[in-house]
């Protein structure tokens, strides 16, 4: 049910300077503060960051599902070249679940307990493709088969409480993929699952992504998941993208001290773990008390006065990788020979 292909776009999704804030009585919390990134057609972008970095709010903003007191303040969300922020609510409804689908972190609570699995999958077909009850049910059974649920004819009449967490997440994927979306947003789809089930779900997503040639925005805080599934990675910190690279560069040559810290805090199985595990010092600043310079400066081992006073821009290099850090700019006022990898190892 997607519209006529518009050849004028290379990226299925382009986010430009997205700003989403939550307003309390006397405070504006900038949950997403000028985020920009692209997802090329048929590619997987991982968005990585700690809790509170604005990953989930970014994804909900794309579908315009931000609820009061939250508000999208500005920016552009170009989906197939068209700005979603200009669409009416009715137009958005036609996109949601049809061209852009979403799966959530909590499979245990994300399905409606009072409807059968079949009813919940069928609903997508009935809304977006106008199918009748029978046809929708038939296609729902096919979807369950596609996501690898055994004996789908039986499962289709069951209620969510009769399924395990992994099975429910498969059902969520079936709902999301029902109408063959061009973009799938997966918000920590495996976080609530057992490790073995995690791998199965990721494999399934990867397999279906290749089969259906859709773009995926995968939100996670797990670098293992990134390594397994993503083509590109955006690292977010305090509502801003601090680094955007292809996956290979992220793992071989992370640039931002925060990214380096994230990588080093993953315990390696061949690493001597007698000592303390590596950590990033300090904690995420509270929104009420955001540093005026680089947001990571208070926790960064390399921070200089420049970092503490002035927010760096997101700069793009020749290969299209992006970095928001003074170290890589001409204005850098610290040690010109600084090596983020070695330094942070010794300080961590």
């Amino acid at each position, binding site marked *: 049910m997607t519209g006529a292909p518009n050849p004028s776009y290379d990226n299925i999704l382009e986010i430009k300077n997205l700003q989403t804030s939550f307003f309390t009585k006397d405070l504006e919390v900038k949950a997403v503060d000028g985020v920009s990134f692209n997802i090329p057609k048929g590619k997987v972008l991982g968005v990585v960051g700690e809790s509170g970095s604005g990953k989930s709010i970014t994804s909900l903003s794309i579908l315009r599902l931000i609820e009061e007191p939250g508000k999208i303040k500005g920016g552009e969300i170009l989906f197939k070249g068209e700005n979603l922020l200009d669409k009416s609510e009715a137009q958005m409804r036609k996109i*949601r679940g049809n061209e852009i689908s979403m799966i959530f972190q909590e499979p245990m609570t994300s399905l409606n307990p009072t409807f059968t699995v079949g009813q919940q999958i069928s609903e997508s077909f009935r809304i977006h493709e106008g199918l009748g009850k029978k046809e929708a049910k038939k296609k729902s059974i096919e979807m369950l088969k596609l996501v690898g649920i055994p004996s789908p004819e039986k499962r289709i009449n069951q209620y969510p409480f009769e399924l395990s967490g992994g099975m429910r997440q498969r059902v969520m994927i079936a709902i999301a993929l029902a109408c063959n979306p061009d973009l799938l947003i997966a918000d920590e789809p495996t976080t609530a699952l057992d490790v073995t089930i995690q791998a199965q779900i990721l494999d399934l997503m990867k397999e279906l992504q290749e089969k259906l040639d859709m773009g995926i925005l995968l939100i996670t805080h797990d670098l293992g998941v990134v390594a397994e599934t993503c083509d590109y990675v955006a690292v977010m910190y305090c509502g801003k993208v601090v680094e955007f690279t292809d996956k290979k560069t992220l793992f071989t040559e992370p640039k931002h001290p925060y990214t380096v810290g994230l990588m080093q805090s993953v315990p390696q199985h061949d690493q001597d773990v007698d000592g303390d595990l590596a950590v990033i010092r300090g904690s995420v600043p509270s929104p009420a008390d955001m540093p005026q310079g680089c947001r990571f400066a208070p926790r960064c081992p390399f921070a200089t006065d420049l970092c503490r006073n002035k927010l760096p821009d997101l700069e793009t290099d020749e290969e299209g990788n992006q970095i928001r850090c003074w170290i890589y700019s001409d204005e850098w006022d610290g040690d010109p020979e600084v090596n983020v990898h070695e330094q942070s190892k010794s300080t961590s």
Partner: protein
Amino acid sequence: MIQFIIRRILQTIPVLIGVSILVFSMMHLVPGDPAQVIAGEGAPQEQIENIRERLGLNDPLPTQYLNYVTSAVQGDLGTSMRSGRDVSAEIGARFWVTVELAIYSTILAVFLGLIAGIISATRKYTAIDTTIMIVALFGLSMPNFWLGLMLIQWFAIGIDLPSWVPFFNNTAWFSPSGWGSFSQIVLPVITLGTGSAAIIARMTRSSMLDVIGSDYIRTARAKGVKEQIVIYRHALKNALIPIVTVVGLQFGGLLGGAVLTESVFAVNGMGKLIIDSIQARDFPVVQGTVLVASLLFILVNLIVDVAYRFLNKRIDLD
């Protein structure tokens, strides 16, 4: 499902036994000798003894209880001391009046309560929400007999107001008493329905708010479901579970006889029957009415439990 209903019916048996024992003991717990009451003040001792013998009041209590239950099961609840008619006939004459009153009031309450609750929940913290909740608080706090009297004054008798007052001047639209015609039904139904509507509205609001904040509602929205369908199909079905309990309790309570409302509007239902019988010390009728009201209450609860199963498949009675 049938198995569940049968099991649930069997579970009511101990409750029924308990109720029958309580109802039976009523006669012996209240002060005053029923035989004395029937015979009247200053009757000769001999006559009182005769009455005792006739009513079986000299038998040991367990025998009396067994006799009572045996005949009650067969539909014989004794004879009214006041009218001399069968108690079952007395109750039968009033039963449907009370059932009608309860049904109409509950329909009104559910209708108003659900709408008000849903509007409140979907517009939380707005002026509309606040207004509805304040009105509901009034409805909840207003005593039935007072509301009934006010309604009679305004809408049955009418108030002579200066002619420039719109609407409320001489609004004697409805009948103040009795039961049967539309004009007689309106005021008692409003009187009884108001309190329940207020309770249902508050319950609906909090239950809907709970559900609307849940993950599966976000899922429904992310699927592209229309907001009205999100609210009335996805959210309401889940929110109804606690609401059904409240409606069931309210309805069950109304079936027991709306004592005050029936008295105020001179509606000849079970509530009024109980009051009249208590005043006349007509014990068999009081016993019979309480027994029937308890039975109805148990029945309504049974229906509520079955309705639960339809709404929430997770409920298992094991």
